[in-house]
């Protein structure tokens, strides 16, 4: 016979105000199998838990129902308490009479009746709960970091410095991400390269970091502590071991007029190239799409001039498998493209801004390259059309961002600040120039941020116009900007030499397909979702996977670095353990009933269903049945609802338990 104990919490006034908790306890006492019921002011408090533990001992309770807040809040707390009192933690259930009852109803009678019924359902359920073993799994103390922007670099360095192995995978030929492209950085205006490149070199030299550039994630299997990651190392056509990075091949390559995407296509590069001089690793890649050798079979200059013989036209993609225990995703962002409407996207383009066809209408990143001392103009602000220095520059903020009718409703967070920075950089370089900024409102929360923005107006004389731009068009060698100044209520027209659009920060193209490989969730824009907006800002809902940087949402460098270090700390916490405990909610097959139809295997999202052969004593095969690998099973239960012979059961959510709840209705 079960001896269930029911503990009804007042939660101060939160529950007791609308629910008659004493009556709930008294009603619970009457339920079959309930040996003890009481109410208490704060069940989760120390004395509350003490009361629970004492009652378990004194009343010899076999099961426990705590009627209080949501199990998402305190299930862990009470299961731990129950365990300390010597019961299996899974013999404890919570009845949610706060979030689902006292907080959403005003009528005391109604709320009390509902609370009594909720408790009744959970009492029936808990009686069917079984003792579940804690499942422990080993932890592979090696981390995978995906993306080598500042987020990935910071996370990798922190984890490596803590003494753990890190595999850093970067899609491009070099690490660095967007920060490597920036000129100077707000709010201090220190040069981005100066603070970034030392960190990049640290990554390359760190004994605990294995760097795979020009590589992508092909497949991810396994689970927290025990992932198997397949990495595709794309054919670089250059042997990384042999190459010394002398750079002779770059200078001799005859195909040297290819737009350099690192410079936002302002400058050119050769077909064998490193994206920028400070690249890490400093090993070239052959861009097979543009290389004459790969297009026509002729040429081979780079191979001839290469002293160490590193150029290898035959090189193939390679697949590597790495076992890792934790994954940090740091794939960053893309800028909203002004060129045209992104294909297959709900996001509309900006036809009124010329769709990228007006050469002197550029985006913020292009301006960064113009302002960068190591950029294609050596840091001179020269406009793309004719290389002249612009006098009047118009900056337009919120292009894409905060424009629900265009398909994006969020704020890109960094544009107010980098536009203020751009007006300053412009003024520092073109002393008699004038910057205009069209803006909706300036958003500058952050340490020393508002002061920085004010400086752009008060000291650098940028003119801020509150209003929107309706149209841009080319007139002679000028770009006419037509907008409105809503503060004064007039139309404004400015003949600009250069227009800079602060385009929205968007997730990477393909962010969704990576998420599907990893089994993590994302929002409607494809930014990756954290497990809890406030309390779990770096964890994914999928255990063992963490987020850092702009892939989770628009972020500046300080926030990115903080999040990256936080993600690294989470990884270290995980690696501090030898064994991991996981919820024993896993599916189990009844070998007796299973007919081996493997419908379960078809629906299992995790590939957890394996084949198991059953042999008799004479070595004759009786049948092949399904076997669920408890290490791989994530506990969704889809197999159970699918199994035609009802031979699979999900521990913790058995048919018996569910039906008991329904029958309590």
């Amino acid at each position: 016979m079960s001896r269930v104990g029911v503990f009804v919490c007042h939660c101060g006034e939160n529950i007791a105000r609308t629910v008659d908790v004493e009556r709930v306890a008294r009603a619970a006492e009457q339920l079959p199998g309930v040996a003890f019921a009481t109410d208490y002011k704060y069940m989760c408090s120390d004395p509350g838990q003490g009361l629970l533990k004492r009652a378990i001992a004194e009343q010899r309770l076999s099961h426990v129902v705590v009627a209080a807040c949501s199990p998402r809040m305190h299930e862990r707390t009470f299961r731990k308490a129950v365990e300390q009192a010597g019961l299996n933690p899974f013999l404890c259930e919570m009845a949610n009479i706060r979030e689902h009852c006292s907080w959403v109803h005003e009528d005391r009678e109604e709320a009390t009746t509902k609370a009594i019924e909720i408790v009744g359902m959970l009492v029936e359920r808990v009686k069917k709960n079984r003792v579940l073993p804690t499942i422990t799994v080993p932890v592979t103390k090696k981390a995978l970091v995906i993306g080598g922007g500042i987020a990935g670099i910071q996370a990798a360095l922190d984890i490596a410095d803590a003494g753990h192995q890190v595999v850093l995978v970067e899609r491009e030929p070099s690490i660095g991400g967007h920060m490597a492209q920036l000129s100077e950085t707000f709010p201090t205006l220190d040069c981005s390269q100066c603070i970034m490149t030392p960190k990049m070199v640290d990554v390359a030299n760190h004994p605990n970091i294995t760097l795979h550039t020009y590589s992508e994630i092909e497949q991810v299997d396994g689970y927290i502590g025990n992932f198997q990651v397949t990495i595709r190392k794309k054919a670089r056509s250059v042997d990384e071991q042999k190459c010394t990075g002398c750079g002779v091949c770059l200078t001799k390559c005859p195909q040297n007029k290819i737009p350099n995407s690192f410079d936002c296509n302002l400058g050119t590069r050769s077909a064998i190239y490193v994206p920028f001089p400070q690249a890490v690793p400093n090993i070239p890649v052959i861009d097979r799409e543009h290389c004459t050798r790969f297009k026509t079979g002729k040429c081979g200059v780079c191979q001839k001039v290469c002293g160490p013989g590193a150029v290898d036209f035959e090189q193939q993609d390679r697949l590597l498998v790495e076992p890792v225990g934790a994954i940090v995703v740091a794939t960053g962002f893309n800028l909203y493209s002004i060129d045209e409407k992104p294909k297959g996207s709900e996001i509309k383009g900006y036809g009124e801004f010329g769709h990228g066809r007006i050469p002197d209408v550029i985006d913020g990143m292009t301006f960064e390259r113009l302002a960068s001392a190591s950029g294609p103009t050596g840091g001179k602000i020269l406009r793309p059309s004719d290389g002249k220095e612009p006098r009047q520059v118009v900056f337009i903020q919120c292009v894409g961002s905060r424009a629900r009718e265009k398909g994006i409703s969020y704020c890109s967070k960094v544009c107010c600040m980098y536009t203020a920075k751009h007006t300053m950089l412009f003024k520092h370089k073109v002393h008699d120039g004038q910057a205009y900024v069209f803006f909706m409102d300036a958003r500058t929360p952050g340490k020393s941020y508002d002061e920085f923005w004010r400086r752009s107006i008060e000291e650098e004389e940028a003119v801020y116009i509150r209003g929107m731009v309706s149209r841009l068009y080319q007139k002679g060698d000028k770009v006419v900007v037509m907008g409105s100044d809503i503060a004064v209520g007039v139309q404004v027209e400015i003949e600009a030499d250069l227009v800079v659009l602060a385009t929205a920060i968007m997730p990477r193209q393909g962010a969704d397909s990576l998420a599907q490989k990893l089994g993590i969730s994302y929002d409607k824009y494809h930014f990756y979702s954290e497990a809890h907006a406030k309390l779990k800002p770096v964890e994914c809902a999928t255990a063992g996977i963490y987020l850092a940087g702009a892939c989770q949402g628009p972020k500046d460098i300080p926030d990115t670095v903080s999040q990256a270090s936080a993600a690294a700390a989470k990884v270290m916490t995980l690696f501090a353990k030898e064994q991991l405990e996981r919820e024993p909610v896993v599916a189990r097959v009844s070998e007796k009933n299973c007919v081996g139809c493997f419908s379960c295997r078809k629906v299992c999202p995790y590939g957890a269903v394996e084949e198991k052969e059953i042999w008799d004593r004479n070595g004759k095969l009786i049948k092949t049945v399904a076997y669920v690998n408890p290490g791989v099973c994530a506990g969704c239960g889809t197999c159970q609802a699918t199994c035609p012979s009802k031979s699979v059961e999900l521990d913790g959510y058995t048919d018996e338990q569910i039906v008991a709840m329904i029958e309590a209705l």
Partner: protein
Amino acid sequence: MHHAKPKHEFEPKIIAFVCTWCTYAGADLAGTSRMQYPANVRLVKFPCTGRIDPVFILKAFQQGADGVLVSGCHPGDCHYMAGNFHARRRFAAFRKLLEFIGVDLQRLQFSWVSAAEAGKWVEVVTELTERVRAMGPMREFKDLALEEQWSGSLTTPELQEAYEAI
């Protein structure tokens, strides 16, 4: 002073099968945000809508539910990647069956409510409650309840014996 709420002659029982990651969390958020909705709904939590056997819906009607709600993560947002897709396909077929055996489909609702959609949760529950209240009690199934044998469990020695003999 609160105004006295209108009393109805009939208060339906509604049972909601929800997944823990999205809809249960959305209902939690409705609570944290102190939204108000009718007190007719009772929740049964599942890890995923993929775990919900259509038989549970039948069972709920048999046990006296006047309305049933099934709700989980939006397509594409499943915590287990694809569980809700399986659920959706399963229920699409199941609705037809229910209709065939004479259940008014107005009593059964499927919806996607995310962890952030407290407002939607309140809307869904309120609408379903009002609709079912207007329809009156569900009688068709209650009489059948007694005879039903829960699938899978061999509760009598005769059944067990018959099974062993196969």
